[in-house]
C-alpha cells in the first residue's frame, strides 16, 4: 500500500539527462528523505489496513459469488462452484434476513432520534449553567461508557429478569406487571440498554462542542432578547451541527451492527431468535450453518446498506446545511 507514496515522488536524477543545479539537488535529497520517513511512519498502519480490512472485504465479496457444493448426495468430495448472484438472491428472499433488516430499521428509528435529542438536550441543560455540581453530573452520566457493552447487557438482563430484578419487584408492589422480554417490549428493552451505555458519552461530545461556541455569539443573542430556551435551540444548536452529524453517523454505524445485546438476551428469552438482526444472521449462517457463501452475501448487503446510509446522512446534512447558510 504505502509503496505508492514514495513512487509518487520525483525519482532520482540519473537518467533525466541534465545535471540539476546544486540547490535543486539538495532539495531533492531532502525531499527523498522526507518521503522515506513518511513511508516508514505510514507502513505499519497500511499493512494492517491491507491485512484486516482490504483483504477481508475482498474475500467477503469473492466468497459471496461461490458456494460449497457436494455432488452425489454429499458423499463426493466437496468443491467450490461459482454461483453468481445466487447467494444474494437467497439472502434477499430469505424472510429471516429481511425480518432482521426490519428489526434493525425499527431499532434505528427509535434509538437514533432518542439518543441524539437526549444527549443534546442534556448537554444544553448542563451548558445553561444552572446545574450545581455540573462536573459530577457529567461524570455520573458518562460512567456507563466505561461499562463494556456485554456487561451493560448483563446488568440490564438481570434488571429485566423476574426474581432477580428490584425494578420488577418495585413495579410488582404497585401492581404493575411488566414483561421486559416480551414480544413488543424486547426491542425497546434493547434500545434502553444502548441508550444507557452511550447517552453520557455523546452528551460529553456535544458539551465539548458547546464549550467551543464563542461567548460573544451567545451574548449577542441575549442582547437581542432571546430567552434561554431560544438561545439553546436557535443559536447554540445550529453552531454544533458538525458534532450532531458526527454523533448521528457513528450511532447509525453502531446501530446497524446490532449484535451484542440481542445475542446476550437471546440466552434468556425465546423472543430473540438466532437470526434476530443482520449481524446475528451472518454469525448464524457462517458458524452454525457453515454456509460461507450465504454469510458473505449477507455481509456485503449489510456493508452496502451501511455505506448507502452513511453517504445519505452526509449528503442530506451538507445539503440542509447549505440551505441554512443561504437562508442567512
Amino acid at each position, binding site marked *: 500500500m504505502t509503496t505508492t507514496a514514495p513512487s509518487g515522488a520525483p525519482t532520482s536524477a540519473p537518467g533525466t539527462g541534465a545535471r540539476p543545479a546544486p540547490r535543486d539537488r539538495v532539495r531533492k535529497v531532502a525531499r527523498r528523505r522526507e518521503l522515506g520517513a513518511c513511508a516508514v511512519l505510514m507502513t*505499519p498502519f497500511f499493512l494492517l*489496513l491491507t491485512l484486516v480490512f482490504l483483504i477481508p472485504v475482498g474475500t467477503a465479496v469473492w466468497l459471496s459469488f461461490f458456494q460449497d457444493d457436494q455432488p452425489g448426495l454429499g458423499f463426493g468430495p466437496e468443491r467450490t462452484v461459482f454461483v453468481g448472484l445466487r447467494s444474494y438472491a437467497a439472502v434477499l428472499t430469505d424472510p429471516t434476513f429481511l425480518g432482521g433488516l426490519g428489526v434493525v430499521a425499527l431499532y434505528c428509528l427509535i434509538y437514533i432520534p432518542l439518543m441524539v435529542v437526549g444527549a443534546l438536550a442534556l448537554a444544553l441543560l448542563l451548558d445553561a449553567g444552572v446545574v450545581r455540581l455540573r462536573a459530577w453530573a457529567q461524570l455520573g452520566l458518562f460512567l456507563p461508557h466505561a461499562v463494556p457493552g456485554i*456487561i451493560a447487557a448483563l446488568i440490564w438482563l438481570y434488571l429485566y429478569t423476574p426474581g432477580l430484578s428490584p425494578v420488577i419487584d418495585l413495579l410488582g408492589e404497585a401492581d404493575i406487571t411488566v414483561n421486559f422480554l416480551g414480544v413488543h417490549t424486547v426491542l425497546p428493552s434493547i434500545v434502553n440498554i444502548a441508550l444507557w451505555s452511550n447517552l453520557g458519552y455523546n452528551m460529553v461530545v456535544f458539551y465539548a*462542542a458547546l464549550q467551543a461556541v464563542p461567548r460573544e455569539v451567545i451574548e449577542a443573542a441575549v442582547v437581542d432578547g432571546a430567552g434561554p430556551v431560544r438561545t439553546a435551540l436557535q443559536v447554540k444548536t445550529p453552531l454544533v451541527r458538525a458534532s450532531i452529524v458526527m454523533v448521528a453517523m457513528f450511532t447509525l454505524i453502531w446501530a446497524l451492527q446490532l449484535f451484542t445485546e440481542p445475542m446476550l438476551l437471546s440466552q434468556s428469552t425465546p423472543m430473540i431468535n438466532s437470526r434476530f438482526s443482520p449481524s446475528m444472521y451472518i454469525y448464524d449462517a457462517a458458524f452454525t450453518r457453515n454456509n460461507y457463501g450465504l454469510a458473505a452475501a449477507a455481509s456485503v448487503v449489510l456493508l452496502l446498506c451501511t455505506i448507502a446510509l452513511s453517504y445519505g446522512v452526509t449528503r442530506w446534512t451538507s445539503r440542509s446545511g447549505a440551505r441554512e447558510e443561504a437562508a442567512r
Partner: protein
Amino acid sequence: MSSRTTAGPTAARPGLLGRATVRLVVGVSVLYTLLPVLWLVLAAAKNRDALFGSDLFALRDFSPVQNVRDLFAMDGGLYGRWYANSLLYAVLGAALGALISVACGYAFDKYRFRHKEKLFGLVLAAVMVPQTVLALPLYLIASETGVVNTFWAVFVPVLFNPFGVYLGRIFSQGYVPGEVLEAARMDGAGELTTYVRVALRMLAPGVVTVFLFQLTAIWNNFFLPMVMLSDQDLYPVSLGLYAWNSAATTSPEYYPVVIMGSLLAVLPLILAFVLLQRFWRSGLTAGSVK
C-alpha cells in the same frame, strides 16, 4: 472537570421554575445512569441467598470477600486467566495501536505526496465498515494461516484503528507547528529522529486519547474473540462472562460469579477514564471539529 468554570452569560439563564426543571431532568438522568451500576455493586457484594431475595437494597447479608474468592476459584481460576488476557489484549493492543495510528496521522498531516487525499478517504471509509462484516473473512484468513484460536487472531485485528489516524492528523495539525519541524531540519536532525524526539512529545496528549479510546474498544470487544477463539484459556473477560452467563441459565450457581466478575471487569476502564480525563476530553473536542 470543567474547562469553563464560570457559567454562561447570566442574562441567558433560566428563571426559577426553569432552573428547577433543569435540575430535575439532569438529576433523573444521572439516577438513570448511576442506579444500574449501583445495583451491580450491591448485587456483587451480597451473599448468594440475598441475591435472589426480595430486599436487595437492605444493608445486610454482605459477603464481598467470599464472593471474590468464589469468583477466582470457579472453574479452576478461569476468571483470573481471562482478566490477564483482557489486560494483555487491551493495554498492549491499545498502546501499540495508538502509536501506529498517530504516526500515520502525523505523516498525513506533515508530508505531501501523490493521492494523499484518496488514501485518507480510504482510511475514513474503513471507519464506517461494520466489524461484523469483516468477521467471517477474517476468520477464514486466520484459519488459512493457522492462527485461528491463538492470541494473534484477536491481537492483530484490534490494532487496526482508522479513527485513530483521523484523530492523529487533527492532533498533529493542532499540536505540532511546522516551524518546529523546520528548525529541527535546519539543525540537521533526520526526519524520523525529529518525529520521535520532537513531534511525538508534542503529540503525547493525542496519543493518550487514542490509546484510551482504543483501550475501551478492545476491552469491550466481544464479536471478534467469539468468532476466533474456542479455547477458553484465551478468552477475554467479555467472552468469558458471556459463556458463564449461558451456563447460568441451567446452573444458577454461576449467577453470583457473573455479577462479581462484571463488577471487577468494569473497574480498569473507570480507573483509566478518571486518571486520564484531561486527555480524552480534549480528544472528544478534536473529533467533533471538522
